[in-house]
Structures are given as C-alpha cells and as structure tokens.
C-alpha cells in the first residue's frame, strides 16, 4: 500500500474503541465518513461501519471488495428509461417535434409525417411513454439510488461528476441525450480515470449539443479539410442546437418530400457560421484548468479551432462524429504547445490528453473534490495529498479520493459537521435517516425541486454550487422544515417511513429525546435544541404524535442541516 500521510491514523480508525484523538471515537468517524462519502447513515449503519472499521468500509466503497446490490438492481428494473437507448429517445423527441409541426401544418406532407411518426413508435419499445415521463424516471431512479444504494461513494461521485460536467436536461435534443450521458458517460467512469471522463464528455452528444460545439465550424477565412465544399444546408450534423425540426428534410424535393420554401429559407438562415467558443471556454475554465488556470483568450480560440468538426452524427445513432469538412486545418497553439496543421480529430484527442494531465487541472479538480469531501474552503494539506495521488496514478479517481480520505484534514475535528447540506443531500439524508423507501414515482424529485435543486436542471454549465452560501436562504430553509415534518409524520408524497424501526414509541419524553438524538443527530443535539423540543412535547399525550413531532423538529432543525 502506498504511503500517504493519513495512514498514520489507520490503526486508530480500524480499532474500536479509539483513543481520545481526532476522530474522537469509532462511531463519530463512521458517522463522518457516512455523511461525507455517502448520503448519511441509515438506521444502525453508524454502528455497523464502526464495527467493520471505517477504512475497510471506505475501501469497499472504492471498489476493492465485493459490493453487489441485488436489491437495488431489482428495483432499477422498474425504470424503463434505463432500458431505453439514445436512439429510441431521439426517436421520441423527433416524434414530439413532428407532432407539434403536424398540427395544422400546411407546408408539410402529411403522409410523410405519418410515416415518420410510425417509425418513431416502432423504434420505441416503451409504447406510449414520452420523453418527459422517461426523464422524470431518470430523476426518480437517481434519488432511489442515492437513498438505497450500498455503493454510497459511487453515488456521491456520480453526482459530483454529473455536476462538474453539467448538462441541462431540458435544452432541446439534450432531452433525448441526457439519460445516455448519465448512464454511459458519467456513471460508467465516475470511479475511473479522469481522462476517460473528459474524453467521454467531450465526445458525448449531450455535451456537444449543450455547449454548442455542434455549431462550431471553421471560420470562412480558415482553410477547412475540404475547402471547396461549404457545409451544405442538408447536412443534419451541422444544424444548430436549438432547431426544433430535425426530422424534416431541408431541401425541397429531397427524398421526394415537399417543403415550404419559407421554411427552407429559415433553416438556411440558421446554419452555423464560424467558430463557437462556448465549449472551448468551459472546457478550460470549468472542466479542466480552472478559471485561474493560466490560459488566455487566444488559447480559448485555438481550442475551439482544434475542436471544429467535433459534432453529432445525426444521420446515424446520434453518436460522436468528426466532420472533416467543418474542421479548421490550420496550425494551432494551446498553452504554448504546438498542434501542427492538418491532424484532424487527433488534435482534439491530444489536446484532451494534455489537459487531463496539466498541473492546473490536477489542482483545480483536487481542490474541488476536497471542497466536496472536507470543507467549503478546502485545506491545502488535503489538496496536496490529492494532487500527489493524481500524479502518481495518472488521474485515477479512486486513488485521489483515497488520498483525500487518508488525509488528516478529512478527520480533523474542525471538519466534522462543517458543511451545510445541499437540498439533495438534505432530502436523501433525511429519507435515509428514517429508513424511508422512495416509491419510485416522480414525487420525491418534485420535493427536491421545491427545495431549489431539481436534478439535471441547472441551466448554467458551472453546475450547482458546492458551498453553503449559495444554498442557505430563508425560503429554502422553511421548505426544509416543512419537508421534515411531512416526512416524520409519514405524509411526504413519494416516500414511506417506518419510525418504529428507529425510534421506539414511548411516553417518556426524555427517552424519546435521547433516542432521537442518538439515531438522527448522532449525539450532536445541543441543549437549546433539547429544551426547545422538550417544551413542544410537554402537552402532547399521544406517544406516536410526540414521536413524529420530535423527529420532524430534529430533521428540520439546524443540526441536521449540517454534515
């Protein structure tokens, strides 16, 4: 096992009970690990992890042991979206657009549209399901996984990377691309190598569409691979992002279909013109080097030029396609490195390889992971540990996370309870804390939306913020209280809870308070909180009502907002 500074804690963490050092005891360290590397403990889990030894649990989470989850797998089978291919999703999207066009459409041939609709239906094994339903399922299954998965760290990292490589699910074709992106690009590499994630996202139709690289073509002044051929209007791969009529041929007479000339003119007017820097800029600023990563506007332009021609094969299965005709064949220079003229797709591959290993990338990503796992203001020590692991393993995400967990900063008393939960972390940890089970309907996702963090719906490419300052506002806090009370009284739509399993019903308020403190707050209940809840319990005689109130106040109270 490689030497990392945190290993000096190893004997302490594996042994229970621990000596009076940070962390103060095995239960505290187990709870801390469950809060940070997962979505908080389920009933009894703190004790179980402490018994196992917290670092053994971490190793299992990192995939060094057997972590099968048949119970979750059988529930995943209920979600049709996981069995629906990107091609089918595209067909559904196209079908929806076609349907809209068909309404009172006078310029289009109705027999053609009817045929396209039939094709779309045939392609879809999901029958009457529409895209909206499928994408709602994707939210539901994501919440189910976060709540129920044994692979908690995997789920947290999947969320981290989904957010880092943010794509807005409701932008045009991304409605059709997103599920595939989540399952086969993000989740497939969430515990793998960073470079694979970077290349995966760079070549994903979801990202190519979201950040407009599909629209980026060589400037007219630049020499393209096929300089004599301007991108023709009927090349589907070059149609710009937001255009809502992909299934309609552009040229009148193509495939023998009639087209309104006005529509043709409008489509032509939307043809991409020149370089689009959106993806290039975010690739440097957000995905790799970071905003202070030392690149210039010239670098952004050269990156954009390198990536001209990286687009979507809209005639095929809507996968990645390198379109030489749109590629800028000139020589480029990025961060001082020369990219000789005319290397085509290889230029972009080389660029991504360089970016994945750049010191600024290592530092940016390490700091962001430390902010997620340790503290909003990530301590330098754990960032250094993470960067060293990154260098040593060429960006193996598991090793970088291991280094962070083994860093003394991770276990420092100042790190405990130091982070405020995001709405997602709050909702999932509350449901887990009371042993709740999501029913698989979109209702839990709707609750999360009400608290301000609808899944996959961050419009801007920077994703949802990591720091608490962005999440804590008054309306949202009141919403969390309402959520907690509904959950505790088993009235939250979309979840069933069984408080009997975790907090015995009792007519002794002190016993109730102690039980709530131990199971839900990990003993962190302050005297003020205890007094406040006790005062509320005073005139409640029904033990079940008292329990629901105490649990609701505890989950909606300030201690539970922290992790």
């Amino acid at each position: 096992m490689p030497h990392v500074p945190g290993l000096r804690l190893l004997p302490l963490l594996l042994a229970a009970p621990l000596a009076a050092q940070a962390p103060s005891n095995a239960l505290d360290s187990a709870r801390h690990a469950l809060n940070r590397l997962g979505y908080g403990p389920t009933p009894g889990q703190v004790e179980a992890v402490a018994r196992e030894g917290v670092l053994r649990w971490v190793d299992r989470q990192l995939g060094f042991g057997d972590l099968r989850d048949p119970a979750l797998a059988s529930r995943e089978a209920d979600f049709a979206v996981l069995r629906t291919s990107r091609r089918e999703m595209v067909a559904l999207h196209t079908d929806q657009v076609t349907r809209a066009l068909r309404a009172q459409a006078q310029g289009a041939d109705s027999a053609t549209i009817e045929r396209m609709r039939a094709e779309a239906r045939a392609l879809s094994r999901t029958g009457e399901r529409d895209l909206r339903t499928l994408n709602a399922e994707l939210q539901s299954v994501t919440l189910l996984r976060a709540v129920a998965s044994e692979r908690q760290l995997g789920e947290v990292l999947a969320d981290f990377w989904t957010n880092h490589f943010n794509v807005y699910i409701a932008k045009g074709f991304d409605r059709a691309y997103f599920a595939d992106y989540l399952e086969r690009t993000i989740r497939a590499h969430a515990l793998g190598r960073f470079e694979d994630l970077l290349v995966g996202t760079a070549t994903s139709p979801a990202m190519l569409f979201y950040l407009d690289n599909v629209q980026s073509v060589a400037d007219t002044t630049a020499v393209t691979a096929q300089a004599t051929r301007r991108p023709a209007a009927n090349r589907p791969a070059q149609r710009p992002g937001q255009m809502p009529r992909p299934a309609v041929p552009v040229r009148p007479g193509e495939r023998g279909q009639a087209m309104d000339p006005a529509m043709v003119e409008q489509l032509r007017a939307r043809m991409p013109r020149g370089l689009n820097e959106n993806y290039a800029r975010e690739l440097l600023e957000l995905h790799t080097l970071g905003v202070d990563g030392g690149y210039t506007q010239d670098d952004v332009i050269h990156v954009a030029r390198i990536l001209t021609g990286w687009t979507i094969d809209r005639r095929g299965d809507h996968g990645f396609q390198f379109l030489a005709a749109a590629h800028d064949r000139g020589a480029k220079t990025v961060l001082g490195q020369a990219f000789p003229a005319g290397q085509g797709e290889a230029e972009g591959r080389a660029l991504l390889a360089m970016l994945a290993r750049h010191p600024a990338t290592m530092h940016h990503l390490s700091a962001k992971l430390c902010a997620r796992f340790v503290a909003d203001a990530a301590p330098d020590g754990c960032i250094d540990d993470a960067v060293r692991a990154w260098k040593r393993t060429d960006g193996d995400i598991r090793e970088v996370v291991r280094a962070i967990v083994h860093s003394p900063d991770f276990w420092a008393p100042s790190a405990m309870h130091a982070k405020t939960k995001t709405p997602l972390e709050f909702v999932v940890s509350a449901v887990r804390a009371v042993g709740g089970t999501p029913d698989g309907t979109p209702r839990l996702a709707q609750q999360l939306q009400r608290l301000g963090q609808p899944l996959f719906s961050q419009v801007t490419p920077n994703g949802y913020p990591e720091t608490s300052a962005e999440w804590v506002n008054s309306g949202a806090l009141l919403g969390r209280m309402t959520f907690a009370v509904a959950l505790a009284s088993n009235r939250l739509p979309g979840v069933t809870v069984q408080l009997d399993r975790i907090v015995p019903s009792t007519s002794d308020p002190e016993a109730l308070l102690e039980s709530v403190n131990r199971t839900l707050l990990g003993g962190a209940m302050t005297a003020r909180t205890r007094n406040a809840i006790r005062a509320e319990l005073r005139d409640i005689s029904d033990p079940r009502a008292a329990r629901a109130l105490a649990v609701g106040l505890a989950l909606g109270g300030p201690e539970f907002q922290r992790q």
Partner: protein
Amino acid sequence: MPISRRAFMKAGGLALVSLGADPLFVDRAAYALRAQLGHVPSGKTLVCLFQRGAVDGLSMIVPAGDPWYWRDRQRIAVGKDDLVSLDGMFALHPRLATLKPLWDRGSLAVVHAVGSPSATRSHFDAQDYMESGTPDRKSTTSGWANRYCQHAHEHAETAFRAVAFGPQLPRILAGSAPALAIDDLRTFGVRTARAEGNDRLTRAFESLYEGAATGLVATSSAEGFEAIKMLKTANPTALPPANGAVYGRSKLATSMQQVAQLIRADLGLQIAFVDVGGWDTHVNQGAGQGQLATRLDELGQALSAFTTDLGDRMRDVVVLTMSEFGRTVKENGTGGTDHGHGTAMMVLGGGVRGKQVFGRWPGLAPDARHEGRDLAVTTDFRALFGEVLTGHLGATDLSAVFPEFVPGPRLGLFG
C-alpha cells in the same frame, strides 16, 4: 470573487453579533420598529414580468405603418380594423385593448426593437443572458436584480425586499443578497397537514434555530421567520382587490394580485419578479384570435387589474415586461413564427413618460433585418433596464449591475 456585503454579513454574522454591531440586524430592527409604528415610507417598487418563450413583439405591439408587416404575414397579421392604434405607426394587439386607457393617461410606454446583443437563438441561453445581465457570458452566476440589491443600500432591507413568484428563485435574483421565492403567498411558511398546527410548529422551529443555529443558517432562518411574522401581522392576502379591479384566474393574475397585496401591505417590496410562459408560437400562432391572442388577453387582464387595484400607488410602481428575443418577421409554414431577435417591451406606471414608443425603429425591409430575417435590435435591453433602475428606483451606479456595459444616449423614459 468580490465579497458582497451580504455574504460578509452572513459569514461574519456571529462575530458581529458578539460585538453587538450587526448592521443588518440594526437596519432590520429599525425597519421593524418603523413598521410597527406605521411610519414606513412608501418605497418604489419595480415589477419585472418575464414572458418566457420569446413573445412575438410584432404581434404584441404591431408596426402597422410598416408595409413589410403586411407583406410577410399574410396569415397571422392582425386584422387592420381590429388594431388598437397608438400613434399612427404602432398599434396594440386587440386583446391588449385593456391597456389603451393607460396609454391615453400617459402611464404606458413601449420600447420597440429592443433585445440582446447576443445572436443566440436558444431560449435557454438568451433567457440566461437577460437574467444574468451579461450577454454571451455564461459564467456569470448571479442575476442583475440581485446585484442591484447587493450594491444599492438606500432601500430598507426587509425580508420582502426582493421576491420572485414561483417555486424556485430565478436566475435574475440569484446571488448573495437575500431574496425570497414564493410560489403562493397563501401557503408560504412552515406548513403541516393541519393548518391550525402551523403557528405552533413555526414557533417551535424558531426557538430551535434561535438557540442552535450559527452563521448562515442562523441569519437565513431568522429572515424566514421574520417573513412569516410580517405576513402574519400585515396579512396581505386578506386585502381584496381595490377600485373594482378584477383579476383573471390565470397563474399570472394570481401572482400579480399577490404582488399588489405585498405593495399595499407596505412590506418593503422593491423588486418583484413574475414570469409567464406560452409565447413560443412556432405553430398556429393565430392573429386577432388564437393561441397568442389568448396569452395576450391574460397579460392585458392581469396588467389592467394590477394598475386598477393599486390606483394612486402606481405612482411608485413600475411594471417592466421582458422576453428573451422576438420572432421572425415572416410567418413560417405552420402558421407560426420562429426564433428571432428584436422584440417589444412595455414600461408601465411610476413616472414613466408614457404615450410614446421609444427606441429607433429599424424598419422591417429585408435589408434592415437582423441576419436578413428578424427585427433588428436598436436598443440593448441593458440600456432599458438600466434606465428603469436609475429613473425609477434612483440607482446611481450600474457598473456592478451591468458590468462592462456602456449605455449610449438615454431613451428618455423618465422625466
């Protein structure tokens, strides 16, 4: 990243409180005291109404005097006889006729050919730019209305200073200044299945947070409980529409009615945000009747009821409509219009110099169009928004609100 006053206050709140010198709390306590004594000065309010989906500005405010309007819109042009003429050149869509008396009284102005310098035709990007106030710059995390609140301190900071109607805080109000998202005033706060338990539960949570919360959570929860208390005391939702105003039953009407209630209850509302969708009329847009006409009818009803309801208080209130871009001059093959560029926006109330259409009209002739197809933009939306912030709210420095934007000559919307 610049540290705003708000973020500083929140992060350092404990330290300041321990010195007994948290200016935010001092401000707020003073305001609460004035409120109890009934001496709240009637502040100015700006209501931003976002027409999401890109309204067809050429149907809303029809350039009836431009021959190209009639040539390129054979099927969807509003009938000549139905138009509500404004000034000979421009006319209101007939379903906005309810706004004509406001025009005649000089409290409605129109800015035409207004929009974003960004050429994007993506709803998502264009809305984002209009709310962040930084066209073509995706990395801006805050909204311009929030940045205004961060930097303008002349206004009392009440919990209701900035309110967005909807389940989530929109981009325009995102940022470090406090802002409330209220889906419905009638259900705001801590709620249980049985309404009679809400007060008690709210009190319980309040005592819980008073004792145990620290930092951000403490100040934010205090603001939330303060909002609940202010609502309970002022009880704005009990105010019936005044002056015989009749709000429709649309979500927009409900939101506008609740904005009016907050204003009438003197809760210190400075910026309200309301949005309304349904403007993305690619197919079967209609003319004097139809899909777009129905939306415009709702809009006209809600605005008209709002101004009637507020009566004289409209002197202190401006409603500003906005939409991410306009739509193509030419109708498309499906009786609709596609994503365009310039559009029209309305400024209603306050000290606006109404009864005028502001902005240079570029004309609809093909060679005057943006990219050969759309109404060109002759007024940057930031010039309009900035003029409303200075002319109505009294803003003096917009450098942080619309960074890197240098406005041209003033439109002259305010006296």
